[in-house]
């Protein structure tokens, strides 16, 4: 479901969200922040994309999604298979304990503050 062609030297963010409206908002957020974006509607699709592309720097994922894995498992898989990739997790679950989140990932409860998420993307892109 990759939509935009990656441009050289621009940071690519993979947005993983099954709900179309929310995915649309997340994509706009990433684009407004000045990054390139790739979309996936499930964790399984995200894994396929990650296996086929090497330019993704940040994954911004929801937790509850259909398919064989949820966003938390995806985050864990990324930490395991693609350690350099940064992960932002968002969910409607009020409090996500640190235990269930892989090391180095950042959590935003839904609805999220677009300013704060943008700031986080910039921070991750800068390191």
């Amino acid at each position, binding site marked *: 479901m990759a939509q935009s062609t990656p441009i050289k030297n621009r940071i690519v963010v993979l947005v993983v969200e099954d*709900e179309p*409206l*929310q995915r*649309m*908002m997340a994509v*706009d957020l990433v684009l407004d922040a000045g990054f390139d974006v790739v979309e996936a509607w499930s964790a399984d699709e995200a894994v396929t994309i990650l296996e086929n592309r090497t330019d993704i720097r940040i994954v911004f994922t929801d937790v*509850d999604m259909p398919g064989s894995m949820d966003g938390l498992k995806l985050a864990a898989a990324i930490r395991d298979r693609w350690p350099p990739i940064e992960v932002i997790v968002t969910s*409607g*679950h*009020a*409090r996500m304990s640190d235990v269930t989140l892989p090391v180095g990932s950042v959590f935003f*409860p*839904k*609805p*999220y*503050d*677009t*300013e704060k998420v943008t700031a986080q993307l910039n921070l991750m892109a800068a390191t």
Partner: protein
Amino acid sequence: MPGLLSLRRDALRQPETNVTNLPDLDQIRRLELLEAYDILNTPPEPEFDDIVLVAAEVCGTPVSLVSLVEADRQWFKASVGFEPCETPIEQSVCAHSLTSPDLLIIPDLTLDPRTAQNTLVTEPPHIRFYAGAPLVGPDGVAIGTLCVIDTTPRPEGLTPSQQKVLTALSRQVIALLEHRRTSHRKDELFRRQKGMSANFRATVNKTIAAQEAGRIGTFEIDITTNVIAVSAEFCRIFDVPAVPTYDAKIFQDMVVPSDRGIHSNDSNRADGSAPMNVEYRIRTATHGVRWISRHAVLEHDENGRPVKMIGTVQDITEAKRTVLRTQALLDLGDRLRDLEDIADMALVASDLMGKAFDATRAGFGLVDQAAETLTIQSEWHSVDADALALKHHFRSYGSYIEDLKRGEPVVLSDVKTDPRTADTADALLALDIRSFVNLPVLDHGRFNLLVYVHHDHVYDWTDEEVSFIRSFGDRVQMAMAKLQAETEQATLNREIGHRLKNTFAMIQAIATQTLRPVTERNHVQNFEKRLFALSKAHDILIHDHGGASIRTIVESLDETLAMPGRIDLDGPDVVLGPRGALSMGLVMHELGTNAMKYGALSQPQGIITIRWVIDDGGQEPQLTFYWQESGGPLPKPPERKGFGSKLIQMGLIGTGGVVTSYEAPGFSVEMSASLQQLQQAH
């Protein structure tokens, strides 16, 4: 036997003559001896009739009585010249003789203050003369009198020889009673047990069940040889063949391990330190664990060394278990309250139930009705028994699953003889199950929990025991249902919270997309931030089960602002209802936003002081909330009233009560609202 109604009034002045003032101890001993003689209400006997005939003849009186004095009446074992077989104690003259060691002679009853008002004197039969000899048992306890009575006064009383005869005849009555006590016994032991049981009932154990009260065994241990001589009842209680003597060690070894040390043994008997009155449990060959109450005395030789231990044993199992069951039910209530895990609850209940019954096993199992299987959930078993395997097919053990499916309890006293299990008895016996109770515990008419108790011996379950097991099952079921409901509620709360937050995220997405063409981005951002504030307030409400404390709401603002150390907050613990919490969450957000844009938080040194108090001096309690900024730029009133200012002006719950100030040291606001409205559930 006179002793009149008005004597009660006299007695107030002369208490020593009052029948009802007899010392209690004497009365108890008298009643005990009467019970031991087993004489009251027996038919007339010629031996006693002859005595009153002789007494009347010798003394020349028309009336003679053998009068036995009970608590509230005197009863005549033999009488001549007197119709009634008893009179109320108030009419008893004999009661006065009980306290005198010798004959009581009253020559003219109308002249004696103790009897002048007695209705037997003042009314027919108008008795005038009384002479009575107390009937004194071997231990010096008087139980009544042999008396002679005349209807004319006798100033001369009785002659010395008449007195001697009357006294001798009274001793004869006692001799007859004593003789009767020994010779009329069909079973000497039985008599002794009955005599002792009176003492036991009075002094030792009031809870002993009536049907067991007579079942007392006796024993005598020769301390040098350790040979114990036992009665037949003793053998029945200890479930051993009835032979006259045993080695005492056999019975010591029957005591269950946890009760060892409180019974006697060869060494503590020899040094005289053995406890005399104890209760302990024994494990019998065919009756399982039984509770024994043992009372004993030591007999010493001339050097003061104990040579014999003599005593009684009684099976007090029923009484003891009744007490233990009550205690177990109380304990269950206490312990279930603290538990939050279904398996723990079933385990605690199994443990209490098993111990209260001294059972082989007690526990709970989950039933699959279609597969007819039982999966053990929690089980207690005695040290001598093995735990049951995890899963069982009901049909392997008999046909009683049919009863269970109908919701009926299965109560089997012997699996070998019950038609439901006779054919499969070996399978049960292999598990040490000789008798059992299986009770279906129904949850909304569904049978999926089973409570069971096993004994490895034949056991007749009482209705009380079965209903005890049922109340255990019901209580555990209720506790489990409550726990399950709470768990489901918590899951539901989380689910509602999750959906609500996703809905907020959807609104956010729709708004973002809809407002994308809007060039004034700060309006879009303001909307988004108000949405967060509302969403956060909902978080707190769901997390804290429908209420939110003011402190949590203010702390949540502090957290959102992410400027540590800038807010100083203090106030009592007050929990707001959903409406109050949501409304306050929004107001906090507006105040915080303004402080960041124009107020104290726009400068690095600015701070906000937040206080809230409850004022219950008025008609109804008011909550007042103070917000004071300082260290920021000098505030000025807003030029136009935006949505944020309107929200603030609406106050804590939309009813106003807001005072704002733009004076130094900074913006401040004071908001008051009815506490009751803030705390309302809806």
